[in-house]
């Protein structure tokens, strides 16, 4: 076990652009590495990405393993797995961190199974344990509990949720070592036939989310929420039943089976607060709830609750926001 050293961050990229979760992991990785006196490296699989490597240095990587091959330009599960497993077996990092994106949560388990090591899913906190091991903290039971997990094998691997860790300030004066590795290409088997962009709604990135639920009487009434969101510089979200009724698209859905959001301000309007919904928004900085039913569970997680008819309250909030801006 002693032969495993250092912390490695998997740099996720789509169409040649590195996902910001990778920079967040470099930030957390740097903090852990400083505590332990170890090195932070990153591994990048892609094609023609030389211009992006410096970004990994700017955000904290001291060394970047770069596997450059046209077959790695897009996410190709079996080739990504094969080359990542090869590199980890060669470099032997003690810790490997992967963003808990859809890509990371599809790739990570295969890599861990192939390496015969543990993987902790969707962590929201990482700590250094007494023996210098990684304590991986993750929500389970739809966010109702936090499990503290350690790994007895090496590398200790975790996928980490996006927008939870802090990235370092980008510093163009930072440099590092580039280690180029040859790719070994296997039969890919999975063939991408087409691609449809999900549109520009990215509720997970929004700083303010105004979310509507069953309390709204019609799809058209979401205009009220649009007005409030606009006044607050935010985005409109909704609960699962709203998506089921096709009032709004899936990309707006907040909750266990939709998006997890963590905005600075979350305004829940006519949302009762099912455990599945709370799982997707309970980590918001400030939560405001508007609901006619004083016993609605959403009030239990709210910083500010207004009991009343949303059709009265929301326009008032909107005009308050407009008046003060």
């Amino acid at each position, binding site marked *: 076990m002693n032969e495993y050293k250092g912390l490695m961050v998997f740099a996720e990229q789509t169409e040649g652009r590195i996902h910001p979760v990778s920079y967040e992991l470099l930030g957390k990785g740097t903090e852990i590495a400083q505590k332990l006196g170890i090195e932070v490296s990153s591994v990048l699989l892609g094609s023609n990405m030389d211009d992006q490597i410096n970004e990994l240095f700017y955000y904290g990587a001291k060394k970047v393993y770069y596997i450059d091959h046209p077959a790695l330009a897009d996410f190709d599960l079996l080739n990504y797995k094969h080359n990542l497993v090869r590199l980890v077996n060669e470099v032997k990092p003690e810790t490997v961190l992967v963003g808990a994106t859809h890509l990371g949560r599809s790739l990570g388990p295969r890599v861990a199974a192939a390496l015969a090591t543990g993987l902790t899913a969707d962590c929201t906190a990482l700590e250094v344990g007494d023996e210098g091991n990684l304590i991986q903290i993750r929500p389970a039971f739809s966010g109702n509990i936090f499990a503290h997990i350690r790994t007895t094998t090496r590398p200790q691997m975790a996928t980490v949720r996006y927008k939870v860790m802090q990235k370092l300030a980008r510093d163009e004066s930072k440099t590092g070592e580039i280690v180029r590795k040859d790719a070994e290409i296997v039969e890919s088997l999975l063939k991408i036939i087409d691609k449809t962009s999900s549109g520009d709604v990215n509720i997970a990135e929004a700083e303010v989310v105004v979310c509507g639920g069953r309390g709204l009487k019609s799809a058209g009434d979401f205009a009220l929420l649009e007005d409030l969101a606009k006044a607050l510089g935010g985005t409109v979200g909704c609960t699962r039943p709203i998506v089921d009724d096709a009032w709004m698209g899936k990309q707006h859905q907040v909750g266990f089976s939709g998006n997890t959001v963590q905005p600075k301000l979350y305004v829940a309007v006519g949302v009762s607060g099912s455990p*599945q919904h709370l799982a997707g928004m309970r980590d918001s900085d400030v939560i405001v709830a508007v609901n006619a039913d004083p016993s609605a569970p959403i009030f239990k997680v709210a910083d500010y609750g207004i009991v009343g008819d949303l059709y009265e309250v929301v326009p008032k909030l909107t005009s308050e926001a407009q008046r003060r801006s």
Partner: protein
Amino acid sequence: MAHIIVPIKQVPDMERVKFDTEAGRIDRSSASGEINPFDLNALEAAVQLKETLGGTVTTISMGPGQAEASVRDSLARGADRGVLLADKAFAGADTWATSYTLASAIKKLGDYDLIICGEKTVDGDTGQVGPEIAEWLNIPHVAYVSAIRKADEKAITVTCEMESASYGIESPLPALITVTKDINVPRLPSFADKMKARKAEIEKWTAADIADVADPANLGLKGSPTRLNKVIIPSEEGRKGEMFRGNLDEATTKVADALQALGLFGSSK
């Protein structure tokens, strides 16, 4: 499609689980066991494929003896055969050991064309077991599948949801897919189906039954590379929990004042 396997898990009814903040304890006593809701979508997808292409559907579950009820429920919902892996040796397994055990049992089941898993479970919430099974079986997988577009004896074409785009992906068979809740609306079993399932035989396998394909060192807690140090049940304290009711003009003004003071409302924009 000759044979589809659906791994399922019995989970507590999440609406009824109680969380004791002080004792750090999860009380499942008032929550009855049910099939993980995401697995119902996987089962429905399998049964729909069977209805159009023929073949059989086998469900397989690892869990305590009472998980037999969930395997039986899967038969009422259209599975043809149900296998329960129940043994003390399986207890305490993490995703690595769980996927190893399930993959070993799948090897034991023999030929299969497609394995369909739910995206994740509502209790463990990892989403890792599906992709890990695929690795153990050395077959391709596609996660986050929201639609099966086309399937025949040799290949399957699915829609895979990533955050920024959805992809059409074709995979040769055998393969494993994990499906999201968007793929279908699971049907409810009829009374007749339930009666039929009540009489059906559930096969029960122990560690001894898979000993020829599974290394006992990889099973259960002993085989698990991750260990639970402790569980913390957060209370919602830390939230202000200020409630306003009655005069709504006053309420909105007060909330607006508070948000403005936090830099979240009005003048900060």
